[in-house]
């Protein structure tokens, strides 16, 4: 208990979380503070490259571990599974349309890389060991959730045909975006950087450490400042599309995903660091790759709903409360 209070305190007073809070505050009081879009994009490229690269270097040094192999399999399973769970919960507890329920739940199957990175910082601070190579799991978890959601929507709409008449265009265009997800810049970058790290190894690491490691945490701060601005603005615009039951889903669903991961991981006997990070990946919700893909695949789904959920509800929750919570759980079950 003391432990979690300490972790939570550590977390809430870290510059990273405080920068996010500053961004949210600035958005709420309508300040004109903003980070240029091109710079925000550059920071996200930097962060993706840096963690991908470091992950690859770790494998180059340690070799491929069995732990990582197991984590990869588990990650894909979770990414496919979570959208189904989320969909049925949303249909049972809220009045969201099927298409919006599918869209929202596919975000929870996919992942948020910034949540992952923020978590690794706390892991480090609390002295829990983990391998940077887990970032490979993050990469493989991005896309399956989207496929899963489109599949379930198809299945659902067939099943419901007699009751509900879904507009034909609801389910068109399912084919096209899958390719585009795999060609999505952030996935290519993450995997590419991973490979570059793997090939150039420790020698390469030493060469570019001055950019990839030293300023990393500072860049993360600025990125979270921008995320705070964004989350705040989305919250203000988007909250009118959500009712309390939908907002609550954005809070208990990540906890549920983390618990599910914990149970499955126990069967697979993962190490505590991998376990904690996998729980966090499962609990996090996408706000970049998935919205971009769904806007094309499911144009009738309302982006205000899914973006507000993942960006303005679940992301802040995970960043402040979720991460220390999952971490404590991971430590408890592992010891």
């Amino acid at each position, binding site marked *: 208990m003391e432990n979690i209070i300490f972790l939570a305190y550590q977390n809430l007073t870290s510059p990273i979380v405080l920068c996010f809070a500053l961004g949210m505050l600035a958005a709420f009081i309508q300040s004109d503070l*903003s*980070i240029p*879009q091109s710079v*925000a994009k550059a920071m*996200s490229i930097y962060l993706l490259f840096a963690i991908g690269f470091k992950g690859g270097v770790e494998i180059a040094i340690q070799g491929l571990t069995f732990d990582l192999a197991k984590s990869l399999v588990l990650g894909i399973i979770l990414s496919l599974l979570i959208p189904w769970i989320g969909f049925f919960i949303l249909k049972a507890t809220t009045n969201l349309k099927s298409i919006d329920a599918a869209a929202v739940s596919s975000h929870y199957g996919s992942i948020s890389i910034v949540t992952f990175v923020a978590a690794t910082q706390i892991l480090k601070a609390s002295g829990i060991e983990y391998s940077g190579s887990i970032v490979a799991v993050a990469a493989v978890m991005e896309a399956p959730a989207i496929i899963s959601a489109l599949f379930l929507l198809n299945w659902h709409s067939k099943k419901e045909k007699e009751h509900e008449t879904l507009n034909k*265009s609801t389910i068109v265009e399912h084919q096209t975006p899958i390719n585009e997800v795999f060609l999505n810049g952030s996935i290519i970058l993450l995997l590419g950087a991973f490979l570059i790290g793997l090939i150039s190894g420790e020698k390469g690491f030493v060469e570019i450490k001055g950019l990839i490691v030293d300023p990393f945490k500072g860049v993360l701060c600025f990125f979270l400042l*921008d995320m705070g*601005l*964004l989350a705040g*603005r989305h919250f203000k*615009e988007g909250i009118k599309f959500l009712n309390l039951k939908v907002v609550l889903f954005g809070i208990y669903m990540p906890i549920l995903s983390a618990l599910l991961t914990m149970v499955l991981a126990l069967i697979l006997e993962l190490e505590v660091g991998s376990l904690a990070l996998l729980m966090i990946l499962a609990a996090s919700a996408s*706000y*970049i790759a998935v*919205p*971009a893909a769904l*806007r*094309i695949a499911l*144009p*009738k789904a309302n*982006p205000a709903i899914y*973006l507000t959920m993942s*960006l303005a509800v679940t992301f802040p929750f995970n960043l402040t409360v979720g991460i220390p919570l999952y971490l404590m759980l991971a430590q408890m079950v592992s010891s």
Partner: protein
Amino acid sequence: MPTHKKTKIEILIEASFEKKLSELLDTLDVKGYTVYPVVSGKGEHGNWSRRGVINVVGQMLLFITIIDSAKAHDIAQKIHDTIEDHLGIITLSEVEVFRDKKF
């Protein structure tokens, strides 16, 4: 050189649909088009702004194509029908050009 009357079609559309609209225009009888950036806007669906968006969702672009006035209405109609879900607005207006054959 004499000028020739043509029709200008302007299509304000979600940025995430850029590729699809380009593909659509390629299949229609359109010889060229130009895409312009957009900063922000307001309509029935509320405000949006290019600033502070993390990706293409929530951004818009303006496509402009100048075409033969005889075909303009039909082509505009087809565009309108195909991209309705991602449409901001679509307008037609009259312009004059020098090179008749080019459009």
